[in-house]
């Protein structure tokens, strides 16, 4: 890829790359970082904040593995500059559920339905489905398929992912009425 012009006129050479302070709010915690202007949000989350659950599959916004929520809405973090995420609430897969012993309803549904194999695309699907179900709590099978049709998975053939969307909807409804994820 070719490097875009730097806002301060810097180009690669003897001078170190200028940094700017960036304050990122991720999963409810504030992170004060000094980052190059061009640092991608995906790289900042993974390598500066240290949350490696967000994966990078294509770095051109197609595969969806790097999907995080920006103020609750799914975005491709490989297409967002870290600096431009300032002032927004970033939610990664770790923010959906961090504890393997207590996965979120969406995460549990992917386990129950064998909705993952290698697991590389999974965090992007978890965040996508989580946001989708916030707005569509009871999708039909067709709607569930559409909900995940912007994310590439090379392992599963999608059938079990579609099942997981509906299973997650079911678990979320149960969680809301009983306050305990089943």
């Amino acid at each position, binding site marked *: *890829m*070719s*490097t875009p012009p730097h806002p301060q006129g810097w180009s*690669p*050479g*003897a*001078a*170190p*790359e200028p940094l700017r302070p960036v304050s990122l709010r991720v999963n409810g915690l504030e992170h004060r970082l000094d980052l190059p202007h*061009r*640092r991608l949000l995906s790289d900042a989350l*993974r*390598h500066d904040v240290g*949350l*490696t*659950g*967000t*994966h*990078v*599959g294509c*770095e*051109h916004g*197609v*595969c969806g*593995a790097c999907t995080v929520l920006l103020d609750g809405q799914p975005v491709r973090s490989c297409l967002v500059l870290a600096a431009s995420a300032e002032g927004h609430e970033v939610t*990664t*897969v770790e923010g959906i*559920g961090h*504890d*393997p*012993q207590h*996965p979120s309803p969406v*995460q549990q549904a*992917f*386990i129950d339905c*064998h909705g*993952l*194999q*290698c*697991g*590389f*695309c999974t*965090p992007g699907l*978890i965040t996508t489905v989580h946001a989708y179900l916030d707005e569509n709590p009871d999708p039909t099978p067709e709607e569930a*398929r*559409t909900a*995940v049709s*912007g*994310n*590439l*998975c*090379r*392992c*599963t*053939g*999608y*059938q*079990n*992912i*579609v099942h997981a969307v509906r299973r997650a909807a079911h678990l979320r409804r149960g969680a809301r009425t009983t306050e305990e994820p089943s």
Partner: protein
Amino acid sequence: MTTRMFGAPITRREDPRLVTGHGHYLDDLGAGALEAAFVRSPHAHARVLDVDVSGALDIDGIVAVWTWEDLPGPAAEPLPMLLPHPSIEHPVTGRALAKDEVNHVGEPIAMVVATNRYLAEDAAQRIRVAYAHREPVVGVATARDAAHLVHEQAPGNVAAHLVQQVGNAPARIEAAPHVLELHLDMERSASMPLEGRGILARWDAEDGRLRVHASTQTSTGTRAALAAKLGLPLARVEVIAPDVGGGFGVKINHPWPEDICVAAAACRLQAPVKWTEDRREHFIGSAHERQQLQTVRVGFDDDGRVLGLDVEFWHDNGAYLPYGVICPLNTSTHLLGPYDIPHYRVEFWSLYTNTVIVTPYRGAGRPQGVFMMERTMDAIADALGKDRAEVRLVNFVREFPHPLGLLMQDGREGVYDSGNYPACLDELKDLVGWDDFQKYRARARAQGRRVGLGIACYVESTGAGPYEGGHIEVDTSGRIHVSTGLTTQGQGHETVFAQVVADELGVPIDMVRVTTGDTRQMSYSVGTWGSRGAVMSGNAVHLAARRVREKALRVAARALEADPVDLELVEGIVRVKGDPQAQIPLAMVAVLSNPLRYAFDDSARAATQFGGRADTTRPPIADDEEPGLEGTDFYSPLRSTFASGMHAAIVETDPESADIRVLRYCVVHDCGPMINPMVVEGQVHGGVAQGIGGALYERLVYDSSGQLLNASFMDFLMPFASEVPEIRTAHLETPSPLNPLGIKGAGEAGTIPGSAVIASAIEDAEGFPITRMPISPSELWDLRRRHAAGRWPSLHRT
């Protein structure tokens, strides 16, 4: 009794970690490591005249810039020919960095190491390479014409040439009542895992060891290759495959140029160095597969029985041949499928082209063979006006073992060990509604819709040797640690191998932990390829568990003063059959198996010299025993076991736009007894999605100058959820007589008949032959126009 785990569709034990962001993929490791980027050739065929790195050296953050001259010793030599084979006439492999020529766009020429990847890529852009262009050879037809050569030392662009035959096919075809000739064509696709390649290498100066994490399908292979290339003793090199984000074949090739460069840099710089491939690099720098031109001549009788089959094909192996002839060899040896064809001749040429190398992608040459055979079966049925399933039925192998008379990729004769092809066909016809299809088609036609039904059958050699091993250790808390050397890319090995071990040791599965692909734990292994994981490591850990079980009973027998044959191991407890009082937990057996001088905790006191149970008339460790409750065993098969299956699909083709939609996709699959049916089902689903992708969407498009025109996920069309139909599956479980668990491999099956079944269905919908895959709506549109103009033949059936 403990519930039997073999056969239970339990959820996967790796999943809670992976869904919560706790996976450890290659780029998740090595925080703070130096990062590498590569300068790659923009030209398909050129001499490298000069590499000027001066513009890169003064960039802040750059640690090293390497060209071929900087590679130490054997690292500068050509990459290994991994799979020598007598058919290889002109072996040519690449180098870790180009020396004086480049043979495909994407070939690495220089490496930059910097404090981060952004800076490394900046510097890579400042490196100037002077080239003298040569004529590129692109596409298998161009390579066959050989007007220009890829490598001067390979006349005719021929890397390898092989003939195998059984019986006398040409004579039988000559004498046959009916003869057909088919000309077929398959194009390039690729594995395209969502995680690309990557390597992290660390030189531990204090230990004098190189530790490598690699996104690979073979950690032992990578280890041996790196040790050889870096001139290090094998014992000083460790390779670990962490979580791997998909492989599908491409990660079995090794060592990659980048592996050697990065590992050599880590040793030279005495610092951790990491390279994480980006997507464009994966398209132009890893490996592709599938392209072949094929000619089939078949002679058959009035019933459709094949009397003789004579096949020639030309296989595009790309710029170099590191992985030998495995793909075309698989094509030639899997072509016969489930059919009994005693007179068969196959001849292939594997040709160099100035394109990315060709190594196995899920199916590894088998889809091309199945495409030839199944196109032929459909053509025979059409010529005779017979039902396509009937023609297949009269040709099925019905007696086992069924020797092929052909040498397979493991150097051994292919022998179908077991199967039930007629039952598989019956099941498939029920599943897809074969006998009702004409009514369905009539209803669709009445609505102005065009539908077609396709079928394809295959067999797959799985579980090839030479071997895999299992090591099992029971610790003093009763936990079971299982290690096997082959790697995992999503197949659920942590779960299925635990299921096998839990059964044999009679313990709850929660007590069992599985490690794969770590040469520190198990240094003898081959790798994950050829649908061999469950067969090879499944049986290896089963055998190792049996050894541990026998040892546990021997140790417990001494403690219980009983005969081992009177003992049983149930729910983690060894007990005397019929005497529930006389029992000892497996954890205590583990304590007693290791006589101690020092008690490191309370339980360990029982194993010390005054612990009270020792028989002082014998040495603490008997002559034929070793300390510790552990065992190692290996499974090494006589030959491969053959899985089988049949697919059927109903497609709809839009009468106006020629859009192609899969309405129904059915799979009957026989991989013997299934360790975990849920995991097998997942493998089938994923394989089918890749098969459909390869049939309808995925095609790597090179222009005549050797530029890959669609090297992005925007342009290379892998199926999304919107392109893959709901898949109906049924399973037969015909055991293999070859291994203790009776199992066969399942990893590649779903993909293998994909192009064949979709071609069959489109042909049935359109009424004219489909001979080239993949097929896009615009190509189907074009075929329709040619057909309407009388320039493309019709099928006989209506």
